[in-house]
């Protein structure tokens, strides 16, 4: 295969065989990851253990849902579907978020650990999109990276603090081992489709992203004196990690879409 194409606008997608299918599939995963986690973040509103955490999670939820909306808009440009329909009306069987992100929040430690693991992954994925052949997505990635910087910095700060000792540390350790079994879902789906890099939509392979992720996570956890479960030192992609979903996602979707479903044709 020769040089990947450069696709400056949605109308040019049709010029390249297979491009539309691959880019729409990948955008769906990006959007569903951000929407699912953004909704989980919003569930802490008014309930976080301290006011700083509460404020942070409401802003982070807003950013994540904003990023999801950006990706749904890009899909809408390509397929003619409506962003709201994509966000609210698709059944669980059509969702492509990583299973890690649909889990119930669990306790505060598990929430922070999951966010930290995801933010570290998301940053590497976005960095591999800055030079994407799909320019509309590359432009968004530049913007998202600047916003996500603060999410990761916040999670690092809180995680280092929770890891210092006592019950908080025990809970962090429990969360690390519980989530290590689920991280393979992040690397499922499009990342396993070699066309994604052949078409230049993503400029790093899943192996590049996974090894950078493992290295960074292990080094940081060790810095904070935390254990590194084997599942975080080397990841194996979960084959069905983005296609098979649990009851947790079903409950999330019925709650998230409750208002929308009451009257899908309402104008806001």
């Amino acid at each position, binding site marked *: 295969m020769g040089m990947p194409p450069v696709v400056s606008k949605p109308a040019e997608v049709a010029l390249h065989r297979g491009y539309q299918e691959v880019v729409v599939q990948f955008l769906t995963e990006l959007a569903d990851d951000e929407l699912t986690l953004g909704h989980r973040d919003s569930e802490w509103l008014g309930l976080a253990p301290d006011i700083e955490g509460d404020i942070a999670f409401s802003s982070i939820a*807003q*950013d994540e849902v904003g990023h999801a*909306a950006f990706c749904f808009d890009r899909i809408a440009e390509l397929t003619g579907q409506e962003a709201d329909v994509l966000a609210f009306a698709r059944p669980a069987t059509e969702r492509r978020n990583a299973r890690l992100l649909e889990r119930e929040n669990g306790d505060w430690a598990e929430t922070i650990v999951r966010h930290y693991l995801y933010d570290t992954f998301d940053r590497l994925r976005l960095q591999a999109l800055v030079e994407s052949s799909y320019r509309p997505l590359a*432009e968004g990635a*530049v913007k998202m990276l600047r916003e996500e910087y603060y999410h990761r910095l916040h999670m690092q700060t809180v995680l280092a603090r929770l890891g210092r000792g006592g019950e908080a540390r025990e809970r962090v350790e429990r969360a690390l081992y519980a989530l290590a079994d689920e991280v393979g879902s992040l690397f499922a789906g499009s990342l396993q489709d070699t066309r994604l890099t052949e078409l230049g939509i993503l400029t790093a392979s899943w192996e590049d992203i996974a090894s950078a992720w493992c290295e960074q996570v292990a080094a940081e956890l060790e810095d904070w004196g935390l254990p590194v479960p084997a599942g975080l030192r080397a990841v194996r992609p979960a084959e069905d990690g983005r296609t098979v979903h649990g009851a947790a996602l079903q409950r999330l979707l019925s709650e998230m879409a409750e208002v929308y479903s009451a009257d899908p044709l309402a104008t806001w």
Partner: protein
Amino acid sequence: MNRTETEFNPRTDGQDLRGRVERALSDVKDPEIPALSIVDLGMVNSVRCEDGRATVSLTPTFLGCPALSIIQHQVERRLRQVEGIHSVDVEFVFTPPWTTERISPEGREKLREFGIAPPPCALASAHLAKPACPYCGSEETRLENLFGPTACRSLYYCEHCRQPFEAIKPV
């Protein structure tokens, strides 16, 4: 046909249609920081006036900013009041991305007067540079929380005048 398209310059002093449109944009304020206009914030990317039709391209500050649609409606409403404008199109563009360096010197001063510290530096060294207190000017400040009342602000505390204050995050 009367067509003008140039890079946006809020200081344009002309009495022509374009000048009137640009001045009108300075009346559109950030709904979350009413001391600042979208011009002060550096959100106006370009302005085009053609046959009574104004096309304004805006750069969103944060992708998920809930004020975007409010700003869009306010731009449409304000520009329709400009003599010689019959219709208004507002579009959002992402390149070049909005960064806090786009806030004008006037905008930084208005932020400070409003009680919000302007961003101290570019993003790369954000965790090193602390903003000066907008009340007493002291550099003895400490970060309380990376996040604040809106996605674009952080919370700080001034050790000198013992006041908590907000600062715009460098992005």
